[in-house]
């Protein structure tokens, strides 16, 4: 069975949860799937701007939970990709405005009428994180190869297991192949060995991500970008396809290691 409700979380802030949510959701929708993404970061919403939908918000998640509008009314349809919808977070409230059971109820209502539901979790391990993982079928933990981000990822993986939402899957963001080669950056092998969960994506560092966020156009819509390709591959793997990991550079060495990782990925 394909996991329909996917929560993206990280522990540490600023490692790429929102960018990953926007891009994986867009890639799935471009593939013809009906996708609803939900910004669970109440008080610090950003999925709207990353998707370029900020000017179309009328109602938000808290309006739905508190009964001020129907679920349908809070779903913003992306005009570029007609099967992509966003339910934005409230900006002037805090995480306590929504409970984990509210989230489960709301997502259950969406399940019958959509192929995928992606939830963008806030950073941290408090209420907002619990709201985001409560309705999840699968939890994706995103980290970058920095010591603080990996440590926080490990904490969050433990909490996901404790909530019986594990095993989480891993996405490694902002890898710089040249630094890895010089042994000045933790390699994907290192991080997988430390965190001991299945790797489902490696995103190379890519300046184009900043450009795409500036414009509100997800990078997966850029056919030539390597990070866009990496996000499309994650979407495909989440849909149940076996996709080889892309070469981050031309050297056989690095590619060889990545493909070995993929083969030994499952645990």
């Amino acid at each position: 069975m394909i996991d329909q409700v996917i929560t993206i979380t990280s522990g540490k802030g600023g490692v790429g949860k929102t960018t990953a949510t926007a891009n994986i959701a867009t890639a799935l929708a471009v593939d013809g799937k009906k996708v609803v993404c939900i910004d669970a970061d109440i008080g610090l919403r950003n999925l709207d701007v990353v998707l370029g939908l900020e000017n179309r918000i009328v109602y938000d998640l808290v309006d739905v939970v508190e009964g001020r509008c129907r679920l349908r009314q809070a779903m913003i349809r992306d005009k570029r990709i007609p099967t992509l919808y966003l339910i934005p977070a409230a900006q002037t409230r805090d995480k306590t405005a929504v409970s984990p059971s509210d989230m489960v109820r709301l997502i259950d209502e969406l399940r019958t009428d959509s192929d995928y539901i992606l939830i963008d979790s806030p950073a941290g391990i408090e209420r907002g994180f619990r709201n985001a993982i409560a309705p999840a079928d699968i939890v994706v933990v995103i980290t970058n190869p920095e010591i603080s981000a990996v440590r926080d990822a490990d904490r969050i993986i433990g909490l996901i297991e404790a909530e019986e939402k594990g095993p989480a899957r891993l996405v490694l963001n902002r890898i710089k192949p040249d630094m890895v080669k010089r042994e000045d950056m933790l390699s994907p092998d290192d991080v997988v060995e430390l965190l001991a969960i299945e790797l489902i994506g490696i995103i190379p560092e890519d300046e184009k991500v900043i450009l795409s966020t500036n414009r509100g156009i997800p990078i997966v819509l850029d056919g030539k970008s390597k990070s866009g390709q990496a996000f499309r591959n994650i979407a495909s793997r989440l849909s149940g396809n076996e996709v080889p990991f892309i070469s981050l550079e031309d050297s056989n060495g690095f590619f060889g290691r990545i493909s070995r990782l993929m083969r030994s990925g499952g645990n």
Partner: protein
Amino acid sequence: MSSFLDRILGREKSSAQQAKERLKLVIIHDRIDINPGTVDILKDELIDVISRHVEIDPAEVRIEMTQDGRQQRLIADIPLNPAGRRRSRQHA
């Protein structure tokens, strides 16, 4: 550049290697919710208990936390002194 030379000559670990080793320890302690100082106390107490029954050399005792996937293990390597030496010491 000098750090690169040091690394080539095996004088210094790469920064990635250092990060990995530091993370390994931090993660193990985070997972079992025990501070590194507590591990030292545990080690001393363990030596104390074992010494009541067999003779050991505290300097040779190695106790460490290791990671096996998402499982942690406490590995204790405690060389035991031979009985002969123990007896002769007791008689001395």
